[in-house]
């Protein structure tokens, strides 16, 4: 048995600009234990509900995260709509679903690029982000923002997408599918990539369930858990079935995310075919009185929104629980027994968003 040393990892680390700190207990280049600590980027956004009206708070909640911003806005609106018993028009729900699935493609492509960068494959990283740019262009055309959309509001959506643009989106996602297939071939078949991914950071199905892992992290370990089955949105009408795999290692997580990109493309095309005509939003007025919980499948996993009104235009309490929060225990479990060189890869594999986690 070698001598044990503690190596601090982060908050500034080589993986991505998200401040997570890990104390790595090392024994002969092998991690024995990892002790995580967060709390470097707390912004107190939830407290702002006491100062911002619930209708204006959407713009603040959207800024919880820069990648899954639309999902946060939607989750918040869904929780308020539930508390106020508002029926959202079908067209608005379809538009929200389309934007959310586009966000998923954008988030997964961003993650795939970062993963490629994590194992030192610069050109693959650049190619992933080049494809992602097409999605950002769709966002700018339909919502006006590349990252933060500001289209979701309590009671529906603010902007419509006309038929011609919907057709264009459908054609664009079909086109990028072939480009992503080429990239997927590198991720899933290239030997040098497989050497870095296969067998690294194994998480068994039992562990994933016990540690309450969510999102692609859980699905890569064979847990059939996806909030799109019974959460908000019109996924039931689109014939949704979650993607799972039994590998449980980094390779499995890459595989799940790539197949989710394909799935999102199919969901978008189906939604565009089925989208009904109608109103974009219903008028909302009056104070929030009840309380409600909404659960939504973000690209990183299940997110939870709780809203409680107190009879005024300000909320009593707002709570957002993000997927990274739930995946940190699973990360600590996968870090035990791994090589020191694989630590950045494993931190990346949960798709950490610490800014989301601390809000």
């Amino acid at each position, binding site marked *: 048995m070698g001598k044990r040393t503690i190596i601090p990892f982060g908050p500034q680390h080589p993986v991505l600009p998200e401040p997570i700190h890990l104390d790595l207990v090392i024994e002969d280049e092998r991690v024995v234990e990892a002790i995580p600590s967060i709390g470097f980027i707390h912004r107190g956004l939830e407290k702002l509900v006491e100062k911002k009206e619930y209708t204006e708070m959407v713009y603040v909640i959207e800024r919880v995260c820069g990648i899954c911003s639309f999902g946060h806005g939607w989750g918040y609106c869904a929780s308020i709509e539930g508390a106020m018993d508002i029926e959202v028009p079908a067209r608005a729900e379809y538009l929200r679903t389309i934007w959310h699935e586009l966000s998923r493609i954008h988030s997964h492509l961003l993650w795939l690029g970062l993963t490629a960068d994590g194992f030192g494959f610069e050109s693959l990283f650049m190619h992933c982000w080049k494809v992602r740019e097409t999605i950002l262009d769709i966002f700018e055309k339909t919502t006006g923002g590349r990252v*933060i959309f500001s289209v979701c509001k309590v009671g529906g959506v603010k902007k419509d997408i006309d038929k011609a643009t919907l057709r264009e989106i459908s054609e664009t996602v079909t086109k990028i599918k072939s480009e992503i297939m080429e990239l997927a071939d590198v991720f899933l078949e*290239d030997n040098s990539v497989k050497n870095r991914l296969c067998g690294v950071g194994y998480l068994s199905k039992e562990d994933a369930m016990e540690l309450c892992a969510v999102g692609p992290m859980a699905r890569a370990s064979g847990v059939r858990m996806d909030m799109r089955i019974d959460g908000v949105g019109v996924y039931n009408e689109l014939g949704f079935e979650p993607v799972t795999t039994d590998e449980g290692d980094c390779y499995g997580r890459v595989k799940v995310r790539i197949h989710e990109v394909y799935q999102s493309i199919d969901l978008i095309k189906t939604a565009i075919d089925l989208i009904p005509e109608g109103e974009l939003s219903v008028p909302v007025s009056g104070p929030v009185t009840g309380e409600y919980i909404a659960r939504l499948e973000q690209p990183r996993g299940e997110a939870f929104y709780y809203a409680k009104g107190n009879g005024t235009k300000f909320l009593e309490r707002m709570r957002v629980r993000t997927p990274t929060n739930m995946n940190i225990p699973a990360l600590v479990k996968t870090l035990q027994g791994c090589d020191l060189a694989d630590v950045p890869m494993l931190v990346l594999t949960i798709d950490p968003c610490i800014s989301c986690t601390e809000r």
Partner: protein
Amino acid sequence: MLVSKISKLVLRSLFKKPATLMYPVIPREWQERTRGHIGIVQEDCILCGICSKKCPTNCITVDRNKRKWTIERMQCIQCGCCTDVCPKKCLTMEQAYTTPETFKVIDNFDIPQPAPKDVPVPKAETPVEA
């Protein structure tokens, strides 16, 4: 394995034109809906102050006495909340982004006196304004 799977893709990209734009030199093409910065039609503004009350970042200040409408450009998040709530629709979302600066940009706009009030004759129009 001698040839990497990505070789074909990389070679193809090598002979394509660059995917990026030489941004400051070649200007961007803005989309119709691009949220760049907030503009104001000064003549239409009635200094009601709803925009400043509803703004999530409190970047707008309305001074009725001095007849000034002020926006802190660096604080604005281009959410479009003010353009939605403006009763006269005198606030607009302009396409171009504001230029980066090393100091906090504060733009002041003087709101002219409404024309009907100067002339006593068209007094009948004032209720419509209100």
